[in-house]
Each structure stands twice: as C-alpha cells, then as structure tokens.
C-alpha cells in the first residue's frame, strides 16, 4: 500500500521528510469535455524505448515515447530501488497505460491519443527538470494535445 503511515522505516521517514516544491501561483485552465480531449502521457518512471540512452544518475533529461509504441518497446532505467517494478514487468499499463488510453479513444471517451508521450526520471530534483518543461509543453501543443496525464513510478 502507498499510505504513507503503512510504509516501514526508514522509508516512512524518508518520504515524510522529503522536501517538496511549492509554487506561489495556482494557474488554472478550462477546456472542452473529456470526449474532445487529445491526451498525452508524461511519466516520471524513467521509461524509454529500447535502444534509447538510459537515464544516467540524477538526469534532468526526458525521453520521447512514440504513440505507436508497444509493450515490448519500453524499458525502465529509473535509479530508485524503492518502488515495485514487478507490476511493470508483468504489464506496462500498470505504469504507462497507453493500451488503456487507446481503448478509450476507440470508444470515443476521449478524442484521441497523442502521437508522442514523454518520460522523465522522477528521482531528480524537480527544480532541475523545470528547465525542460517549456520545450515539452511546446511539443505537446504542436501535437495538438489538450490534456496531459502525469503518472509516477
């Protein structure tokens, strides 16, 4: 379980005391209903296509995951050893639900699935990754994405 209070020490204290970024602004955007949204996934699970360079150390880089990717194409190089990976080994959708998104698009629950998705390596300090965000945001806009699902490791 990921209820913090149920995690054993020292993991509980590590996560309880983890410094989190805070932001002075609360930007908010409204948009169309879900069935008019083109959705992209952004993961922090350190995912990348097989053959792409792995994440090295506390990397601020991101990797591009084509919307045509299949389960066999995606591997993980997150540096943390403190989360379960066996779920991903069994079924990539438990971390990166691209098959589930495709099904929702087929049923017209969402308007469509983005041509490109992205992954960062979530152990990196968010302040380091922030410099990459405008670039990824621009790529999403050019892909006509109007809804992003962020998924953790």
């Amino acid at each position: 379980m990921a209820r913090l209070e149920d995690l054993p020490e020292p993991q509980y204290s590590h996560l309880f005391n983890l410094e989190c970024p805070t932001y002075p602004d609360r930007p908010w955007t409204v948009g169309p209903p879900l069935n008019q949204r083109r959705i992209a996934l952004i993961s922090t699970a350190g995912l990348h296509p097989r053959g792409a360079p792995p994440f090295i150390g506390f990397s601020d880089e991101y990797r591009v995951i084509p919307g045509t990717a299949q389960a066999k194409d995606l591997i993980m190089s997150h540096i943390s050893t403190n989360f379960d990976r066996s779920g991903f080994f069994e079924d990539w959708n438990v971390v990166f639900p691209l098959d589930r998104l495709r099904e929702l698009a087929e049923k017209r629950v969402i308007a469509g699935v983005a041509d490109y998705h992205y992954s960062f390596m979530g152990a990196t300090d968010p302040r380091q990754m922030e410099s990459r965000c405008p670039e990824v945001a621009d790529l999403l806009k050019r892909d006509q994405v109007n809804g992003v699902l962020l998924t953790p490791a």
Partner: protein
Amino acid sequence: MATTQISLIRLHTEKIKPPRALWVPFDLGRPLGAPNDPGFQTRVLMAALKLLEAPSGPVLEDFPDEAPASEDYSGPVACPLPINASGEQLVGIDRLRADFLSETAQMGVWYEIARKKRQRTSVGASGLDPRTISEFLAACLQGGPPPNPRPEIPLASMVKLAIEDLKAYYFEAAAAQPGRSNPDIKQLNDWFWGRTAAGGVFMELHRILRQSADPGLRFLAERLLVPMSQASRLASGKGQK
C-alpha cells in the same frame, strides 16, 4: 495545458498543490493499481481523466478502492538449487560467485518461458544479455573496479543498470512459474533478497562497494542498491535465511 495526475503519496500532493490530482492507495510502482486487470486500470484512468472537467481547482480526490489482491499461489518461489559449477569445495566469496553464476543460468529456463509467453521483456536498460550481466556483477565481487562492458557509461551507472536488469530477469522468471501471473510483491522481494544467490551477491556488493575508492560506487552502495524495505537484512548482518 491542462494536466491531471495520479498521486501515490498524498502528503506530497497536499504540499505541492497541482491543479488536478487523484490520490490512489496503491503500492509504489503501481499507479494504475494491478497488472493484467484492464477493467480496474480503466476505472483508475477514468477517475484521473475526469478531473480535467473540474470547473475550478486545485482538486485532490481520493480513489476509493484498494488494488485487487494477488490471488496467486502463495507458496515459495521455485528456485533451482545453486550448483557448484567448479565441482570443488568453494567457500566464501568464491562459493557465492559460483552459486550466483549457476543460479542465473538456471533461472534462464523460466525467463525464456516468460519472454515467449508475454512476447516482451523489461530486461535491456544495461544493453547487456543476462549472462554478461551476471559475469559483470560477479566480477564486481573482486573488490577492485571491474572492466566496464560499456565504457561510454560511468562505471557506477553501469553497475546500477546491470543490477536492475538482473532483478527484472529474476522477477520475470519467477512470475512465469505456474499460478504466478500477479505475484505478491512482498513475497517476491523476500524470496529474491532472502533466498537467492543473486540477492546474496547484492548484499555483498553493498558491503564491498561502500569501501570503494570510486565515489559513484560508494553512493550506489549506500543509496541505490538495497531497497529500504530490505534494510533490516543489512542491520541484522544476516542478509539471507
């Protein structure tokens, strides 16, 4: 750009206050709940996506259900007895190394079954095949820096990638055994860290690499090698049963 997210640690989301977040009570590493359960995953996904229609924010909602429990066979994971490949009476590190190389080779049977059944594998981040990975990690037991099979990657990072690939190899092999399509996480980890030669090697690497002259290897050993959930094995000094 409208975003919504799945959150595994509610406290962090409360502090950060993103526009839209769905907290889920699932294990770290399983944001969509459970493998091989499309219906449940879709429920979680829809709950997160629906937040895009919220009229104002920030929004933090709680997913109401626990992930489906594993109904797998709960008996021990079958692991081939390590065979002393040299036929000699080895002890200590030499015995551990021989057992590890033999065990890794024998786990290959289940691993290949898993790979054919699922038509995929998560092994690959190191760019090495399982045999080369095991030989590389066995060489790390020597104490001095081993030859780096991929010199373009820093040695400590290469060791880390090899370690995670080897765990993937073992876990995929274990899950191929009958009745284990959704293995219990704790059982898998207790088996790997407590009963396999590979887990023993990783515990020994933790001890050896903490004394390395390479700061990257020392950091790896201290922070990135043994999960916090297995810290008690280190504290007791009796890594394996």
